[in-house]
């Protein structure tokens, strides 16, 4: 069976999207894929997987394929600041498409400290060229940005993280913050380096936040594909997070949910319930108050996810989760059992523990300030911040959040 025949007679290759692309696209696809020099099977598999993840009709697959096969690949710059490179590692684990397909075929990743060939002046020359030309299509940021003491807590080539971010953002069409740190300051945000999220530093640019510790590369890839295909972000919530990834409670999507509803709980690590895969709520699981598509997309090519592997969720894709969700082994208060439908948008943002309350004074004020700045959240009398229901929005301009 030839490749051309494969497209028509192997609809199973496209079962993720549920249907084969229209036959009339075939000739065009052949040319496009030959030009790109990659296997049609792999390329179509990627496009249809993206179509499914974004919950688009299968008939959109050819449009995605077409967008990805532009003559000029989009220029992408990835900057790292107060980071652990965990989001970079997550990107390297990308399965659909593979990382080689991304950096060789889908985009031109011109700057990425962890894996780029050049160093020092040679590396900075590439960045400077794109900053001067203003031709960065997508700027991806990993890590928090320290603002205290003139920015001395992170310098690259002698320049502060703030300066790098502002210069690169000004030269970019779209900015994506990956991971908890780049989104809201993350772990470093609790320290004294004045660590902030991207949205606190830049303004006037479309910004998409892809929280998580780390981000799940499947969501990031899908977001990028959507942007390249349609020229806009997928629908976002009040935190500029795509609804397809952050719009539903983990608890509602969890494979162990039936055990929760039936009152079957793990009571001790390694007990019979644990071995049966029962609910981890009593062991501190934060799934009932966390949103993410972790249970659906899972990790490492869909292999598993934390609850699936036997440990509770720590709500790593939730706002300021470090401050709000520790102690991680304490049971969540006020989780309704039956007959109460908890919606993602009605989850409070109160911290759950004594230590958290202490350390969250700073973080909480950041949330409150940020939320007030956006005018999309309500500060409750007890000081907690409750977001308004998510409304689909174009990428925010990121403004209104700088100090």
């Amino acid at each position: 069976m030839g490749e051309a025949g494969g497209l028509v007679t192997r609809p199973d290759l496209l079962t993720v999207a549920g249907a084969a692309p229209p036959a009339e696209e075939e000739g065009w696809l052949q040319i496009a894929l030959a030009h790109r020099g990659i296997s049609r099977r792999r390329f179509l598999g990627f496009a249809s997987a993206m179509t499914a993840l974004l919950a688009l009709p299968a008939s959109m697959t050819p449009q995605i394929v077409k967008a990805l096969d532009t003559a000029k690949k989009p220029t992408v710059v990835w900057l790292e600041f107060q980071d652990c490179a965990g989001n970079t590692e997550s990107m390297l684990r990308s399965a659909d498409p593979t990382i080689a397909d991304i950096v060789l075929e889908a985009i031109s990743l011109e700057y990425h400290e962890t894996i780029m060939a050049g160093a020092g002046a040679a590396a900075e020359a590439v960045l400077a060229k794109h900053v001067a030309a203003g031709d960065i299509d997508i700027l991806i940021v990993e890590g928090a940005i320290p603002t205290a003491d003139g920015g001395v807590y992170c310098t690259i080539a002698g320049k502060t993280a703030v300066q790098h971010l502002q210069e690169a953002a000004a030269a970019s069409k779209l900015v994506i913050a990956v991971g908890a740190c780049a989104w809201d300051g993350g772990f470093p945000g609790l320290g004294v380096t004045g660590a902030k999220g991207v949205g606190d530093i830049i303004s006037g640019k479309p910004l998409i936040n892809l929280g998580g510790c780390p981000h799940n590369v499947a969501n990031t890839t899908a977001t990028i594909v959507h942007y390249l295909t349609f020229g806009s972000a997928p629908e976002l919530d009040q935190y500029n997070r795509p609804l397809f990834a952050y719009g539903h409670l983990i608890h509602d999507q969890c494979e162990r949910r039936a055990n929760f509803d039936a009152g079957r709980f793990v009571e001790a690590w390694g007990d019979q319930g644990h071995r049966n895969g029962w609910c981890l709520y009593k062991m501190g699981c934060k799934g009932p108050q966390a949103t993410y598509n972790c249970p659906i997309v899972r990790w490492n090519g869909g292999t598993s996810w934390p609850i699936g592997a036997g440990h509770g969720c720590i709500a790593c894709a939730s706002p300021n989760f470090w401050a709000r969700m520790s102690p991680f082994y304490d049971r969540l208060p006020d989780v309704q059992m039956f007959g109460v439908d908890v919606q993602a948008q009605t989850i409070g943002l109160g911290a759950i523990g004594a230590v958290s309350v202490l350390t969250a004074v700073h973080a909480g004020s950041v949330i409150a300030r940020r939320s007030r700045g956006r005018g999309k959240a309500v500060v409750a009398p007890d000081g907690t911040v409750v977001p308004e229901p998510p409304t689909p929005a174009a990428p925010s301009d990121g403004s209104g959040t700088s100090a």
Partner: protein
Amino acid sequence: MTNVVIDPVTRIEGHLRIEAQVDGGKVTSAYSSGTMFRGMELILQGRDPREAWIWAQRICGVCTTVHAHASVYAVENALGIEVPPNARLIRNLIAGAQHIQDHVIHFYHLHALDWVDVVASLKADPAKTASIAQSISSYDRSSETYFKNVQARVQKLADSGQLSLMASGYWGHPAYLLPPEVDLLAVAHYLDALDWQREVIKIHSVLGGKNPHLQTYLVGGMAAAVDPNSPNVINWERIGFISERIKMMRAFVEQVYMPDVIAVAGYYPDWWSIGAGHKNYLAYGGLQDGNQNDQSQFGFQRGIIVGGDLGKVLDLDQTKITEAIAHSYYTYDGGATALHPWQGETNPKYTGPTPPYDALNTDSQYSWLKAPRYDGMPMEVGPLARMLIAYAKGVAPVKTLVDGALAKFSAQPPVLFSTLGRTAARMLETVYLLDLMDSWLEQLVQNMETGDLRIHDGTKWDPSTWPTDTELEGWGFHEAPRGALGHWVKIGKDHKIANYQAVVPSTWNAGPRDEKGQTGPYEASLEGTPVADPTRPLEMLRTIHSFDPCLACAVHVVDATGKEAVRVEVR
């Protein structure tokens, strides 16, 4: 004399700046600077020690797992917990997978482009590459067609004018010495390794829920439940899944990584005598096959080698560890220049140039790293230290591996004190770990077969079982891919973390000078490194990359407020 600055040093984790003076085509002095600081350990204070590992793991996403590993051991040591065998085996399988995957990624994706000219690979004859490949390995992807396709892929990239990650490389540099056919071989395996690493690390996903930042550690064991007859946990099907990936590890390491390192090294014989540094080596040991403090059960040995003397391995005495700050952005109360971690303080005080800057004040403070010393001496940690210590102690499988590799080059052990020695030791260590992986999985299977399904010792899980009249102190040791890692914890009478500190591999290696002016290992190793073109210091990158730098780990992750909060206590 020419000043050379490399900032950022890329193909590493984190933010590293190297300044060097080059004279007569060689580095005469070098300065290593960590340029990023987060400040973490204060944040751990007052928290539940059982969750310290969740936070500590975020010290690094490249060295994911290793800080979780050291952290749970530290708290278990404080509480006097010995984890059940299955938990130890699962931890070891995770750690072994981390080492093997990380070492292969290091060679192909972080280090290879120091030796391999990607653009030159376009000139290769794929038929000759196939013939070379088939002569050194039984790896099945070695046909002429295969290499032709890889070359076509690289050609497409070059023709597009958008070179992506390859845009800034030093292609055509005179220090590249491989024939184009070997360049092509390495480029093909660069791409294969990208696929391989993604697949084999699924071991972490099964045992840890996800990678990076695994989520199944517990103080007292692991949360990865084991039951051969349950569909939802580690059962016979999952064991098969893991076993298959260990086989994939072995195949790639033995058929690709090992022959490639040997082949590439063959074209760079000078590098067996470049980059030695101080020749002092330190390892804490780890990967226990039994009680966590029983050194006879260690997969990696503990010890010290001084001045390249392989005839004598000294016992490690922790009380001889100090951290110097004369050239670091910190102060010690009372003006001390070096303190044992027990008395450690971290008062950050940036005294460097105001950004944007062109040069550091290398005469005064120039790094966010402290300078760890053992008995006053700088120490190199990592795969070379581990392999040398095991070799000198006569560990049979290590001796066989090292002697076998040396025989291929008709060389003696001292050649290992070098840039290439580090790269070779990392590969040999990877091979060494394959048998351990098999053995750990086999033990886990035996336990499942005999009905031992314990994964957690819960007797101390409830903090109400902990003493209220005394503070507890503990330490956890681990040999991370990059070297000796220690976490120290102090638990207060209120059962919260009173103090926490980590002393990390890349701090040992990448630290600056001390109060006596003694260089750190990176700095010492760079001295004498040839530099053909100071504007393209490719050779310096070879030596730096041979250490596999991880700067997120290295920067002292302590109290950023200057309080006495992170005093470390060690029993």
